[in-house]
């Protein structure tokens, strides 16, 4: 087990390098740079001033030199400074990451619990009205993209019904309170969760249906166990195993989704930070975002593997 973890971690190092190289290249290939992005917003500047700012930021060097400088810093634990406001990238990310993790964590958990429960119900009521209704709802859910779901929720619950706030993490001008924060969380989390709940539901339904046909379910019934015991103890435990993979795959898409949803709801997480940094061609922040998300996704994949060995005694890593 330990050696498996070690091997996985060692293998993730070249992958991380590859990710940074690709993203650095893409960021460099974008038209314009941080200096040009700044001056278009301000008054026009002279060519000398532009050249001087580029020199200060190191943008006049060859791409590979810029990359090597950056990676050199990273290996010393320094993610660099923002071109725009000069603050440390590590500080900015550290400030904003908890917001995103709160949003993503709540969304993922809600999606998993709701989706799995409905999926199991759907399977137990196969080909009945409940099953067909849930299946239809599921198709609607997977067909609505995150951004549209966000706009729809804002329109219905914030603008029309006025039940919930439409943006930010807390009401401006009031002292921060958890309740107020959670009220702000509901809509963006729902925008992220509904699509994923629909996916969990489809997989949970399929998984449960397969389990229901297994011989050990017949054995459990032949023992005279209660229907509830059979479904939960013998059925759900097995049906959860393939869901672990779906759970692991949902995480990377959540980062993508959170970029969109944080923008719509002005949620000050790293997704919003990423959009701002792209607009400003602020490559140290872009790279910081990519590195952090890549690490989190890799750790999540590792956790997925571990979850397998916990849920399924037949799986062992060596």
């Amino acid at each position, binding site marked *: 087990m330990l050696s498996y973890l070690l091997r996985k971690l060692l293998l993730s190092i070249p992958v991380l390098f590859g990710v940074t190289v690709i993203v650095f290249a893409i960021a460099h290939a974008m038209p314009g740079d941080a200096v040009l992005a700044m001056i278009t917003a301000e008054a026009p500047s002279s060519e000398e001033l532009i050249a001087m700012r580029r020199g200060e930021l190191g943008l006049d060097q060859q791409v590979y030199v810029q990359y090597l400088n950056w990676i050199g810093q990273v290996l010393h634990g320094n993610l660099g400074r923002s071109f725009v406001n000069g603050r440390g990238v590590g500080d900015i990310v550290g400030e904003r990451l908890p917001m995103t993790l709160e949003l993503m964590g709540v969304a993922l958990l809600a999606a998993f619990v709701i989706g799995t429960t409905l999926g199991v119900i759907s399977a137990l009521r196969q080909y009945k009205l409940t099953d067909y209704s849930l299946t239809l709802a599921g198709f609607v859910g997977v067909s609505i993209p995150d951004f549209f779901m966000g706009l729809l929720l804002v329109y219905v619950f914030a603008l029309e019904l006025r039940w919930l706030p439409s943006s930010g993490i807390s009401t401006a001008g009031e002292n921060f309170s958890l309740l107020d924060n959670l009220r702000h969380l509901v809509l963006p989390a729902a925008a992220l969760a509904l699509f994923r709940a629909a996916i969990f539901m489809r997989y949970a339904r399929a998984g449960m249906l397969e389990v229901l046909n297994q011989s050990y379910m017949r054995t459990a*019934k032949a023992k005279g*166990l209660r229907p509830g015991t059979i479904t939960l*103890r013998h059925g759900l*435990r097995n049906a959860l195993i393939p869901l672990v993979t779906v759970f692991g795959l949902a995480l990377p898409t959540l980062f993508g989704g959170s970029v969109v949803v944080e923008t719509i709801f002005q949620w000050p997480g790293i997704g919003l930070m990423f959009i701002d940094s792209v607009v400003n061609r602020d490559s140290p922040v872009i790279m910081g975002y990519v590195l952090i998300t890549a690490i989190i996704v890799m750790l999540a994949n590792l956790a997925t593997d571990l979850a397998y060995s916990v*849920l399924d*005694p037949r799986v062992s890593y060596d």
Partner: protein
Amino acid sequence: MGADMLAIDRAARAIGQQAVLSVQGLSVEFGPSGNSVYAVNDVSFELAEGESLAIVGESGSGKSVTVQTLMGLIRKPPGRVTTGRALFRGRDLLAMPDSELRRIRGRDIAMIFQDPMSSLNPVLTIGLQLTEALREHQGLPVKEAERQALDMLDLVGIANAAQRMQAFPHQFSGGQLQRIGIAMALVCKPSILIADEPTTALDVTIQAQIVELVVRLQKQLGMAIIWISHDLSLVAGFVDRVAVMYAGSIVEQAPVERLFAAPVHPYTIGLLNSIPSLNAANTRLVPIKGAPPNVTLPPTFCAFAPRCEHTVARCREAKPVLETVGAGHATACWRWRELAQAPRMPAAPIERVAAAPASQAPLLVVSGLKVHFPIRRGVLRRQVGAVRAVDGVSFEVMRGETLALVGESGCGKSTTGRAVLGLERPDEGSILFDGKDYAGATGDALKQRRRDMQMVFQNPFGSLNPRMTVGRIIGEGLRAQKIGTRASRDARVSELLALVGLREALRNRYPFELSGGQRQRVGIARALAANPKFIIADEPISALDVSIQAQIVNLLDDLKTRLGLTYLFVGHDLSMIRYLSDRVAVMYLGRIVETGSTNAVFGAPLHPYTRALLSAIPVPDPKAGGTRRRIVLGGTVPDPSRPPPGCHFHPRCPLATDICARVEPQVRDFGANGAGRHLVACHHAGEATP
């Protein structure tokens, strides 16, 4: 149990009702009415306290559906009980609500299933699965339930039971798992045990262990048993009564001795004739013609009529009812009286057409073959060991003969076959085919070898591509080898269809439209397409129904004579092997322990493993059960990545001495003059078994 229940119980006993279970006129259908599958039709039987009844039938005969209906285990819908009662101690199991039936399931009537690997929950510990029925039905506290479960594990012969309670199913072997499945069924001391083909997925020596165990437990616990099986020979040895089912109906029911001595129903007689007897290997098997029945037609006629030799108009017009033949003997056949009076035709023994005597020139010479599968561990995936699937195997196959490679699962017989064909790369050894060494051949050499050598696979359901027509499947090899033109290949496919006894019309069908027997014929036609000299048949009949097995065996026999083929037959069904093969090589844990002519090996086996294997074969004769000496091997086959030192068999061998644990026995020839070689690898070959 309520007071009224007790009253009913008492009343039932008072009127002298001996039967613990009485099934009356049970019919079960699946699917919407009007488009039904008639799975069980008007089945009635009784089971006395402590009695053992076998229900025997082929797949689709309704034997499993019958017992699962009693237990409330069939899904409704699509299943429907259309008529019938099933009285358990006077209470109708079919009429009570599921919440009430649930209290009988597992407590009074328990069940063990066919495949122990899949019928235990893989993610729960054995301990939990053993105790949950006790806790459910008797409300025992955890500690007490665990104590009783432990006792039961001891009783079924699981060593170190206390430690193994925390283990998961995948940590046990198939035989151990079936013991655990039995313990699980018996923890509540039921009065009826239903065993649904509990040994079909197991090896023959393990099967013998399980049968012995169940028979012993039946005596100890005094329960009645319903044993479901497709194998008449197996149940002959230990049940009191047999009911034979065909297409959802019981066609004959009798005490076991009587059923074997004086069967009256043509289907029962046909089944008995299609089993090769261990004593008469020179008469041809008499298969039942045709294919298994279509159960989508309403049961208004005798379902066996289309396959019966004695069908008259009446058989197609009305369904026969069970009539009494003698004491405890009943049959459902319109003509049983006439047929019983007619001079019994003892299945007119047809001499097998003797194949041209095998020449002494070997077609295939395998020597020192080793196939090891590496086990890798650690950060750097270093090889830390190997599964020694085939560990130094040598044999020869003469032109025109059939050599059978026999052994239990995991002994390496299939891997050997695959290595010969080039589907596995050997680690060591040579494979001389027609004088050329093909070990580890690749590219053109391998292609040439595949033209001369073909394989017939075990599972005709999985080995045919479901998206290809029969014609394409058969012709594919010719296309791949670029043999002939399109037209000539088409003609060859027609020729092959005729050769294996399939109608030309089947050419454009897909595999799912065919029966198992037809599919295996397609598999054989495919293998023969490019005119190979040599066929490797890997368990070609073990997935087929008994009445169909004989058809395929006869086909293989005919093809060999007509086309001058040479066979390497890989299998575990020893009675079929005795019938089919000229010579036999017995494998155990990656090595061949005994090789010789079929008569020598079966008649006078010299290796203690061969003897045990042969004694475990069920014989279709209830009387032999008592007199025949059985050598029931203890334990299971060891892990092939850590084979025992010296002779691989010594930890289970009744003859083993010190030398066996130290020195690998050399192969010695015990052949009598003129009878060919009889090679045995054993220090104590031929010594009497204690």
